[in-house]
């Protein structure tokens, strides 16, 4: 497989949008899926489907083995120390809710501080807000600077002996800033504060090594990693797997159930209640195969090349203002266009087959700080090329024409 030629692995690109070839620049929202992944889903349902972990018949054994083999694969991919550190969830959102709920129940009390940043996606704020309302915890926001970065010092300054957890994004889905997560983890470790990283944008773009990063929790959405809908991953350090109480209750996560009391299963099992997303998990193994075949570092440098080209091209248009100027940037390019609202841009771009997103991208705090209520966002995936950027740039010019500016 060759990155330059990778579009053809994605069936969606044989679609025409309004008669034009699809220019998909909305991967930070959700990525498209390679044929291998899609085919794995059908193939699994057609030949091996069964519920996992519950029955002993051949189909159940096959499904269970594939399911658990994917856990092994994820463990290896993330270089996690133990397979039990890999927990399957519904989404990164659920992963973070799980941590906030289980960690919060046991370790957050009135007056305790939760440290997040102004960059956070609502998924990494609302679950902590619940602890604020229910437990009287305090949320502190590390400020974002003019470049759209969060500096390590601004985190350091907010740590007190009341800080119980730090929850930060790996890559901002608006400014594109790649945060210095390893340094932040090191800083937190000095004070024995656990760190949750919202890796929703980080995992599709960076080489993730859990033993190197050494954070306590890392949340992933598989649908942004060329994988299926409805599946997330939570990496949870063994120490917390053993320590934290379970999250949802139901089949599969129990040890012994009596009328008076219930004891719970151990390891990842206690966090995986009810029938799991077997087909999704099984097909996600193919997404990892896809990423591994190309190499995540190659994907990142390809995306960086397209991004740089995009920044350069868009900067030439004086009406465009690019949001953020972080030291190091993920595959996200947010911008505004003079006198044209992002929603209008998105609608007009779509006429040219160019798919971008407009709005606050679930980051209202950040948009308040920026003093705007919406931005337009082009985000890059492995399948984008310079031609896509050219079309974006032309389509923006067409916007200006429609608006007679």
């Amino acid at each position, binding site marked *: 497989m060759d990155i330059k030629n990778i579009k053809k692995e994605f069936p969606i690109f044989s679609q025409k949008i309004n008669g034009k070839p699809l220019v998909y620049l909305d991967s930070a929202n959700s990525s498209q899926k390679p044929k291998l992944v899609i085919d794995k889903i059908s193939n699994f349902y057609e030949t091996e489907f069964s519920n996992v972990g519950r029955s002993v018949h051949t189909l159940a054994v096959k499904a269970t083995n594939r399911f658990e083999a994917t856990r092994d694969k994820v463990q290896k991919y993330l270089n996690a120390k133990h397979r039990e550190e890999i927990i399957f969830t519904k989404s990164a959102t659920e992963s973070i809710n799980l941590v906030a709920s289980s960690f919060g129940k046991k370790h957050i009390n009135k007056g305790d501080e939760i440290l997040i940043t102004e960059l956070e996606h609502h998924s990494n704020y609302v679950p902590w807000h619940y602890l604020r309302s229910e437990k009287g915890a305090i949320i502190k926001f590390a400020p974002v600077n003019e470049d759209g970065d969060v500096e390590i010092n601004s985190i350091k300054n907010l740590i007190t002996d009341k800080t119980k957890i730090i929850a930060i994004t790996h890559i901002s889905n608006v400014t594109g800033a790649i945060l210095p997560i390893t340094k932040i983890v090191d800083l937190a470790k000095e004070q024995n504060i656990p760190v949750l990283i919202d890796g929703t944008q980080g995992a599709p773009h960076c080489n993730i090594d859990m033993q190197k990063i050494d954070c306590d929790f890392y949340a992933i959405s598989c649908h942004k990693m060329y994988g299926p809908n409805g599946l997330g991953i939570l990496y949870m350090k063994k120490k917390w797997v053993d320590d934290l109480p379970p999250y949802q209750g139901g089949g599969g996560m129990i040890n012994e159930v009596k009328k008076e009391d219930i004891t719970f299963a151990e390891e990842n099992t206690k966090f995986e209640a009810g029938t799991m997303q077997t087909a999704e998990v099984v097909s996600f193994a193919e997404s990892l195969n896809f990423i591994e075949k190309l190499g995540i570092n190659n994907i990142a440098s390809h995306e960086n090349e397209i991004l740089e080209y995009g920044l350069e091209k868009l900067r030439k248009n004086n009406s465009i203002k690019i949001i953020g100027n972080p030291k190091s940037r993920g595959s996200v390019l947010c911008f505004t266009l003079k006198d*044209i609202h992002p*929603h*209008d841009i998105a609608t*007009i771009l779509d006429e040219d087959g160019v798919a971008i997103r407009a*709005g606050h991208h679930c980051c209202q705090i950040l*948009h308040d700080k920026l003093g705007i*209520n919406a931005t337009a966002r082009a985000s890059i995936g492995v399948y984008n090329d310079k031609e896509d950027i050219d079309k974006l740039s032309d389509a923006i010019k067409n916007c200006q024409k*429609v608006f007679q500016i």
Partner: protein
Amino acid sequence: MELKELYQEIILDHGKNPRNKGKCEGFTNDAKAHNPLCGDKVHIYLKLNKDKQIENLSFEGEGCAISLASASILTETVKGKDLSFIKKISEDFIKMIKNKTKITINSLTADQITTIASLSGVQEFPMRVKCATMAWHTLLSAIEKK
């Protein structure tokens, strides 16, 4: 081309130079709304006199051309009208956007009808329907509030 229908001259004009923007003096009723998905906001102020006519109204808002134009056109359409007219026109407007029906209110001038109808292109853009209807829903809640 549908896009041209959506971004007609009238809409661009109202979007760029919205009428009755700001907070009108002595307002008796107001209501605001917000589209959490995109961040658009609108706040409608109106002054009802004792004959239940809208003596004055205005709006504050942030949003796309469609939402600003819709609010602006709204203020022009209902100023000076009474409550029953306002209910009728608001409902007709929302129906027009959603079900592609025509506005048929005798007391409107042909010009006014053309202006309002300019927003009907939104039908073809389902994700934008809320942009066009938000102000009208907000007007109705402003009236219901006391």
